[in-house]
């Protein structure tokens, strides 16, 4: 019978009951007696088992780049950028006079018509800015202590209770960003957004959305710790029926890492994001959800597998945490709760049929789900804060003052700004250069994105004299004008919304029967494809109108074992190819691809986009004799110029200890513009990770 180790009193009680039941079973001495739960009833065959491990995980950075999505990794912390303000074209004469400009000047026609001059002690029209955030250069990307334990209680022969707890603590000392350090006398502090995420030190683990500080069931977290139950289920198995009820994650499909049919759960990208050991795929990444899952073996060859679950979104890394992928100049308002998507009535559900017919295998998937990744768009900041009276360097901020004065009778510029997606607080975008660099990096259109932020928030944007631009040059003028007027920078506010979609998928596999020992023998070829009609995407402009497109995703997987020598066990190879038509592997619209830091003055759009994305994965595992050592290798290649290479070694000297090391090499500039491939912006992830595990 199972052993109990380090169990609490309840578990020990259960164990004692199980032990008594087992002894009775032994004395009966009949295999037939012990096999029928109905004769034994509850607790007759009770058994309790427990196991787990504890594992420190450390990632050493081998790159001189910090995560550019974080405050202290922003390259403009070290790069100065020139700014020139212009008289807003829709400002009439009010601002001209406020700026000391002769009202005899022709009215400005666009954002490049009338530059605001520098008038010492009166007005700042032009300057050069470097983000007032100290850059950092962390030696460690990750310092985590992880503990996991699984308790299994067999209640009857058919019914089990299984719970798995995962606890993580980040005890690292990083040169990280602390929001109060950005406060200044001109703009004050970062006011918008959830203070737990934007107002202090990095919050490594708490997942909070607007209006709900605890959206994940069975999860408890603080800024530096996380405890949750990825599994807490009742598992019922009788005959061909298998039922699991409770918090759980579900994985589908033959493809590894490429999620074509694996559409049930979102991913939890806190901790090590997608840069963990690739050979483990998303082993601890799927977001668990309260669900009912029913598996039924229809025939020997056909398995039906259905689920219905409470919708739980993908969890992104929090601002300024090591692997955050949303630039922190944005404040994100997650509408999961505000829009009622966290209600228990918001369900995702689906069915899969899996058939194994000798050399052939087939899968069919149909789900109706909320896309857990969500989509983003500009949203009103809600931060009512007037523009400051002084600007960078302490000079008088006549532009800001003029905006304030112009709105004095209608509630103030702060009120008007609160209706726009912007907030005049530190830690935002300080220059047009920075704006376009980041827009391209996150696959957004910097020019039309600016227009969307203005057009979608009328009349508030008009009240602060913002107006759409016709081209890149005007966008630069308007952006720099507002950054100066805001006292240095603006923070952008975006919201995250969720939509239902139907995902239909098919997969087929074939096992090649070749000459023994040949390269083709026992090669498994698998093709998977999915179709999602009218999937909702984030617009590259972050406009209020999301994009809708039919989405097709396909993957080809080939895998086999091949023994090169009789001295070593066979090598396991996987070669995968994925084709996507609308978004990239991380869910970003392909229309946002191809952006650059600068454009032709008359350019009207910030990025040309691409029509499809293709990825190739090649991986292998080479165990040594007795599998004490195992070499792993994985690479992800984007033919547009990005590559991730991950060699690794696992060492298992005995049953208790395991030592894993792997290195992530990311090159996003194999061929030109990094914003044209999947890995652009991820080069900060060059690192070596070491994990030392002890299991009990």
């Amino acid at each position: 019978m199972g052993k109990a180790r380090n169990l609490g009193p309840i578990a020990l009680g259960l164990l004692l009951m199980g032990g008594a039941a087992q002894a009775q079973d032994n004395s009966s001495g009949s295999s037939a007696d012990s096999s029928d739960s109905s004769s034994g009833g509850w607790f007759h065959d009770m058994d309790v088992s427990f196991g787990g491990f504890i594992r420190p995980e450390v990632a050493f950075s081998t790159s001189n780049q910090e995560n550019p999505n974080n405050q202290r990794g922003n390259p403009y912390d070290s790069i100065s950028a020139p700014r020139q303000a212009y008289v807003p074209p829709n400002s009439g004469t009010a601002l001209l006079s406020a700026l000391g400009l002769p009202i005899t000047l022709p009215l400005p026609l666009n954002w490049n018509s009338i530059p605001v001059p520098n008038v010492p002690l009166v007005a700042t029209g032009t300057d050069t800015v470097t983000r007032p955030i100290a850059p950092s250069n962390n030696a460690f990307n990750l310092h985590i202590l992880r503990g996991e334990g699984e308790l299994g209680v067999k209640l009857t022969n058919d019914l089990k209770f299984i719970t798995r707890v995962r606890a993580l603590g980040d005890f690292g000392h990083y040169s990280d960003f602390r929001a109060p350090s950005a406060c200044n006398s001109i703009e004050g502090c970062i006011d918008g957004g959830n203070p737990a995420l934007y107002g202090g030190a990095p919050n490594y683990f708490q997942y909070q959305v607007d209006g709900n500080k605890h959206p994940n069931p069975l999860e408890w977290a603080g800024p530096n710790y996380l405890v949750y139950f990825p599994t807490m289920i009742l598992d019922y198995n009788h005959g061909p029926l298998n039922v699991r009820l409770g918090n759980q994650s579900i994985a589908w499909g033959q493809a590894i890492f490429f999620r074509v049919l694996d559409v049930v759960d979102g991913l939890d990208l806190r901790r090590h994001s997608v840069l963990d050991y690739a050979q483990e795929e998303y082993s601890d990444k799927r977001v668990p959800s309260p669900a009912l899952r029913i598996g039924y073996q229809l025939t020997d060859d056909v398995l039906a597998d259905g689920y219905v679950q409470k919708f739980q979104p993908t969890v992104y890394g929090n601002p300024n945490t090591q692997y955050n992928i949303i630039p922190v100049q944005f404040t994100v308002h997650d509408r999961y709760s505000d829009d009622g998507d966290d209600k228990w009535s918001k369900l995702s559900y689906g069915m899969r049929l899996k058939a194994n017919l000798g050399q052939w295998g087939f899968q069919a998937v149909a789900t109706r789900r909320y896309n857990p990744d969500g989509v983003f768009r500009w949203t009103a900041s809600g931060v009512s804060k007037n523009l400051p009276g002084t600007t960078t360097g302490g000079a008088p901020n006549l532009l800001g003052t003029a905006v304030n004065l112009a709105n004095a009778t209608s509630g103030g510029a702060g009120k008007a700004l609160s209706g726009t997606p912007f907030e005049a607080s530190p830690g935002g975008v300080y220059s047009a250069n920075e704006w376009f660099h980041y827009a391209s990096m996150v696959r957004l259109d910097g020019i039309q994105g600016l227009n969307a932020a203005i057009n979608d928030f009328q009349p508030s944007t008009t009240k602060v004299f913002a107006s759409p631009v016709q081209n890149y040059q005007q966008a630069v003028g308007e952006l720099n004008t507002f950054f100066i007027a805001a006292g240095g920078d603006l923070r952008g506010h975006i919201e995250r919304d969720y939509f239902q979609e139907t995902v239909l998928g098919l997969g087929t596999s074939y096992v090649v029967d070749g000459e023994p020992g040949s390269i083709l023998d026992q090669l498994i070829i698998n093709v998977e494809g999915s179709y999602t009609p009218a999937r909702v995407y984030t617009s590259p402009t972050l406009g209020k109108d999301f994009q809708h497109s039919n989405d097709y995703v396909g993957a080809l997987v080939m895998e086999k074992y091949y023994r090169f020598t009789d001295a070593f066990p066979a090598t396991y190879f996987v070669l995968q190819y994925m084709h996507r038509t609308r978004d990239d592997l991380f869910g970003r619209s392909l229309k946002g691809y191809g952006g650059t830091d600068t454009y032709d003055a008359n350019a009207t759009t910030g990025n040309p986009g691409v029509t499809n994305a293709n990825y190739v994965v090649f991986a292998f595992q080479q165990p040594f004799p007795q599998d004490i050592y195992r070499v792993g290798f994985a690479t992800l290649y984007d033919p547009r110029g990005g590559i991730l290479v991950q060699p690794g070694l696992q060492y298992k000297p005995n049953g208790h200890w395991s030592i894993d090391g792997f290195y992530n090499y990311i090159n996003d500039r194999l061929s030109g513009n990094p914003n044209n491939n999947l890995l652009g912006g991820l080069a900060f992830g060059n690192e070596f990770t070491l994990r030392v595990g002890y299991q009990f």
Partner: protein
Amino acid sequence: MHIRRYDPDYSRRHFLQQMAKGVASAGVLMPLWQALAQNGEINKAYPEELLSIEGYTKGRIKTGDEITAANVELVKDLLEPIKYVQVAKMGRRLRVAKTTTDLMRLSPWEYLEATLRNQGQARFDARGNVVTAEGKPWIGGSPFPAPQTAVELFAGLTLSWGRHDAAFYAIKEYDLSSDGDLRFNYECGWAELSPIARVCMEPKPYWPGHEDKLRYQSVFFQTPESARGTSFLNIWAYDQSTFPDLYGYVPAFKRIRQFPTDQRFEPLIPGSTLYLSDAWCAGDPLYTWGNYKIVGRGPLLAGVSGGWDPSHPNWEHGTHGGPQGKTFWNTTVELVPEAIVVEAEPVKFPRAPVSKKRVWFDARTQLPISMVSFDRRGEPYRSFDGAYGLYEADGKAFMDGKHPYWSWGHVHAFDIQTGTMTRLEQVRTISGGHATRANDPVIYDKYLTNAALMHLGST
């Protein structure tokens, strides 16, 4: 005074003559299976020197004695070379039991009944598969109880591993270094079910609709944590030239995936010296190996009884020997009057680490009692010896229907070249409450389907 009818070398000469003539029939004094058919006893087929250790050693070793380094030379010819070295140099000891003469105590009752009932009906079809005279799949029991060729022995073994229609073995595995350190230990479950040749479970002899399959077999691991939920399901075609389909649940992937199945010489888990190919000395389809030939015959000391230890509530066995007293199971052996030694080569595994295997079969039951495999240089590589027995001892019994359960009790898998040892034992229950059982239809749904892998998979 007991007068010997045959001198001590009579049987040795007999076996040599039989080998020289290429005669494969078992039995010295009369055909073994003829004797067994008469009264289920072997006594009439063998002279006394082959029916007791006392007879063989002229009384120098008696039933109940231990074979140790001190007396192993007396029985050197009764031991496979590796087992001899283990006793002579590594501290292994063997307790000698009385030779079992009652055939019905040497395999499951129903299997032996079917063997008697169906003898003479088996033949090979054009593809080399065992079929009845009507060309249908085999109907139960050993198809060739009086084997004339090596391939007949392996065909019978491959048809039915555990000799039950269905079996679930709760197993503990211990992997030891050459220093005798216990490096890894696992708890795992092994299930096997025959859809054909059924002798006990209804429907029989065939499970309708499944006649094209030979076997469903799965293995899964319950502990330790790193292996929990790892499971593999093999579905064997009846055609013995076809590789099984292999499905696996790997905890990191959290789902069932199909895996290539031709590599059967790989460690399933860290530290183990066992491969899928090693299962029951016949872990691969019959014709993925070839060049089967009988290379010897003669008496052998082997564990064909006393493999069950009910003194432990979970049937766990004691150990001894090796650098730390943990390398070997406490083992009971008895004199097997006639073992048939067969060699085979892995003809469909061009880069397998073994060049051939040599398997000792008990001529009475065609049960594999020992195996040694050889590396590509022809050097001894790994040895396997197990202990079987009725689960009936010390007034206790574990029943399989009307009769005591018969099965294996423990196994040694020893890597001669590295000195590493894997020990397996069949226990009552492993973690998770998975209990040993036989001929229970629930085994299929619980362990041998894709849904079962989902159920067994870690969370």
